[in-house]
């Protein structure tokens, strides 16, 4: 950088980057800047915005399905439309929302948290984003033609050319490939970044837990994506080029698809939830004013979960033709994964224990997450017990279970992350009272929607049916669930309003509004291109806390930061 050496300056109360002469590059149009950017923060923002748009689309699809199911014998949707909606809803939420939004948070915060100036391969990073966008466009274009209708799991023979002749199924395959390549490139990039570009002193034992989670997320993607890519390619050749991998009339095996798909599909579940665990592990210690309880145990649990995640796939297939001994194995492996997950939950609660809790919206969502995820984890034990699963699989009990894990788990953690990091991304605070209102409406709406779905499944309602008759005992539960889903929608809308409002009128955040622990709070909000002029030396898991203490020691001035005092009352 062509600047003169800065003069020796006194230690400042608020640690921040001092930018000297900045030579502005030639002016480009703003949209050109966004389209051509390789800045990890801009790419991260584009990821977050795009995936949130897909979240809203997926949510609208969910609401349409809930309207259809609110009363028996409803004619709001036909079976065809309903199957299309359930396919698009599932595919959108998984491939276009939860997985890539984690990449969005990862993109923005991994380099900042490890003290790097960008990702290892900035242009590859941009490519990941654009592939995701094109995958989404290809998929959503089918709305104007024939959307796929074989479900996001697309079991053959239903997804074969004979039973799903439309091009929608091929668009689905294309989407899996495009988003798959996007995720793979992103994963390689994350891995290279985290392995090579950590700040001096940041050993593996001092890596922030969110970064641990993203590292493991990347490894799981690298393991799982090639398998689903192979499987959908086989489906494609079955459909168009005369192969018979999954065709039972020519000695192909539909169950083979199930093994391949779920070998990807179960790691995918942890790909979606582990970064959420990471965010919770960042949020809770900051707002408890305590170090994370059992750092090593949480990091190790993340790795163990990832390892076991590759060994549990057939628990999605307990009703399929499998020998009992195989079911026994997959029951045990699925039980085992409950242990590290339980360890994480206990560690989070222990972090809250004897803390000094600043009840911010972010912490509300984090605590709500723990409560909801505990229910989702416990119902997982029921489903892993294969004789019990014979009653529960493919019913609304399963729908309730995985929405507790993914909607209550991943989305609540995303919300916690959003309220926590929004000040860093935009430089402005989100409105706290509105955020808390949003939390309560979401929490109530969520539980109303999905808790009764356990009861629906237990009273015999299978998943994926577009209508049902009266007199089966399902009508009341379904109505409650539909009302709840709209309350949930209002809760999410409140956060959207909050974001839109705070972008313009939110309180200025300052570099470190929460007294954070990690290096992203060392930069101004929003951070400048290339993040850091000086990369501090890391001496613990909480480098920012060390810096704050050092400044206090040297100046004797208690650090006041841009907003936390309102909550701390200390």
């Amino acid at each position, binding site marked *: 950088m062509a600047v003169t050496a800065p003069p020796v300056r006194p230690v400042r109360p608020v640690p921040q980057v001092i930018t000297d002469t900045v030579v502005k590059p030639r002016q480009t149009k703003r949209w050109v800047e966004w389209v051509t950017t390789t800045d990890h923060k801009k790419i991260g923002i584009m990821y977050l915005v795009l995936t949130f748009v897909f979240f809203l689309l997926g949510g609208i699809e969910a609401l349409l399905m809930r309207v259809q199911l609110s009363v028996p014998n409803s004619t709001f949707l036909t079976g065809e439309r309903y199957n299309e909606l359930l396919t698009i809803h599932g595919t959108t939420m998984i491939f276009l929302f939860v997985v890539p939004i984690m990449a969005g948070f990862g993109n923005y915060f991994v380099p900042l948290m490890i003290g790097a100036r960008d990702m290892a391969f900035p242009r590859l990073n941009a490519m990941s984003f654009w592939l995701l966008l094109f995958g989404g466009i290809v998929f959503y274009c089918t709305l104007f033609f024939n959307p796929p209708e074989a479900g996001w799991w697309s079991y053959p023979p239903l997804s074969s050319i004979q039973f799903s002749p439309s091009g929608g199924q091929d668009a689905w395959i294309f989407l899996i490939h495009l988003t798959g390549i996007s995720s793979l490139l992103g994963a390689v990039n994350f891995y290279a970044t985290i392995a090579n570009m950590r700040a001096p002193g940041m050993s593996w034992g001092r890596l922030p837990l969110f970064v641990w989670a993203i590292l493991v997320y990347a490894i799981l993607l690298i393991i799982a994506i090639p398998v689903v890519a192979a499987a959908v390619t086989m489906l494609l050749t079955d459909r168009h080029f005369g192969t018979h991998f999954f065709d039972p009339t020519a000695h192909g095996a539909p169950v083979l698809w199930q093994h391949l798909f779920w070998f990807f599909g179960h790691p995918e579940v942890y790909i979606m939830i582990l970064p959420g665990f990471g965010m919770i592990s960042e949020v809770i210690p900051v707002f408890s004013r305590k170090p994370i309880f059992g750092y090593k145990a949480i990091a190790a649990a993340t790795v163990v979960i990832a390892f076991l995640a590759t060994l549990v796939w057939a628990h999605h297939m307990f009703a399929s033709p499998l020998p009992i001994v195989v079911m026994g194995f997959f029951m045990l492996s699925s039980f085992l994964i409950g242990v590290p997950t339980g360890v994480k939950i206990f560690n989070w609660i222990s972090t809250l224990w004897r803390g000094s809790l600043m009840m911010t919206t972010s912490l509300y969502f984090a605590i709500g997450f723990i409560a909801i995820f505990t229910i989702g984890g416990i119902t997982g034990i029921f489903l892993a017990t294969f004789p019990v699963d014979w009653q529960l699989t493919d019913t609304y009990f399963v729908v309730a279970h995985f929405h507790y894990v993914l909607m209550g788990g991943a989305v609540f953690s995303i919300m916690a992350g959003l309220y926590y990091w929004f000040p860093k991304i935009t430089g402005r605070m989100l409105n706290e009272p509105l955020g808390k209102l949003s939390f309560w409406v979401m929490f109530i709406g969520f539980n109303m929607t999905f808790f009764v779905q356990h009861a629906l499944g237990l009273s015999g309602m299978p998943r994926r049916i577009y209508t049902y008759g009266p007199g089966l005992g399902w009508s009341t539960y379904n109505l409650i669930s539909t009302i709840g889903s709209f309350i949930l929608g209002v809760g999410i809308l409140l956060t959207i309003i909050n974001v839109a409002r705070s972008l313009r009128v939110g309180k200025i955040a300052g570099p470190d509004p929460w007294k954070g622990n990690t290096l992203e709070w060392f930069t101004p909000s929003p951070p400048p291109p290339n993040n850091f002029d000086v990369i501090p030396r890391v001496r613990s898991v909480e480098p920012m806390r060390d810096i704050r203490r050092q400044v206090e020691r040297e100046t004797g001035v208690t650090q006041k930061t841009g907003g936390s005092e309102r*909550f701390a009352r200390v």
Partner: protein
Amino acid sequence: MASAVAVALLLAPAAFANFITPKAGGSPNANKIDSLYKIILYIAAVVFMIVVGTLVYSMFKFRAKKGAVAAQIHGNTRLEVSWTVAAALILVAITVVTFVKLGGIINPPNSNPGVVLSASTTQPTPPNGKQVTICVQGRQYIWRYTYGSGCLNNYFTNKLPYSYQEMEAPAGATVVLDIQSTDVIHSWWVPSLGGKVDAVPGYTTYTWFKALHPGLFHGQCAQLCGRNHAAMTALVNVVPPAQYQAWLNQQQRLITQANDRVGALRQYLTQSGQL
């Protein structure tokens, strides 16, 4: 929420029969799944109340107050090891209970004395080898039932009685179902008579039930099988054995009559040159 669960547990047997436990009561396998489910439910409820109780307690107890300082604890190895072991032990307990119960769920018992109607060699088999065999064939969007041993290979040639959508079954007899599909994957499921079994084209899968009492049981295809998946319902009408035998004879007679009429019509149409 913890108290809600506690209340639900107290009321479990009566008002919440299918609210927090699966449907059961029709067949021993469904009942054993139900009792296994309940054991896990009791353990789960205790774990849930401990976890969420601690969470809620700390939320109120440790809220930031003037002068309160957060304890700077980094961990406690002994505590962490003990809850890891405790979690593992709970799962070991559930595993043991599952395998103890498993036999009764997958192995059919003998039929009640006096109601055995036929013998078959297909799996699974009750100890004395005597059972009622019914073939269940899934197709878009209806279930077809073929009654009698040997149905698996002789859907049409053997002149076995058959029916669609509604299955007749004798009470007290061990009924073994041989399940197949002719097109896409379906899933056989009548909740009160036991768990799901997928009907996968190219495979034959099996399940069984032993209806404890006469009654009409509702079920439904549980795997997405196309646009009219919701209409693929199943009814199992369990009747006393004598009535079942009478129904079989009548069904056989009706099918034969209908076949004869169709045969006669075909002959007439062929002879008159219209076919």
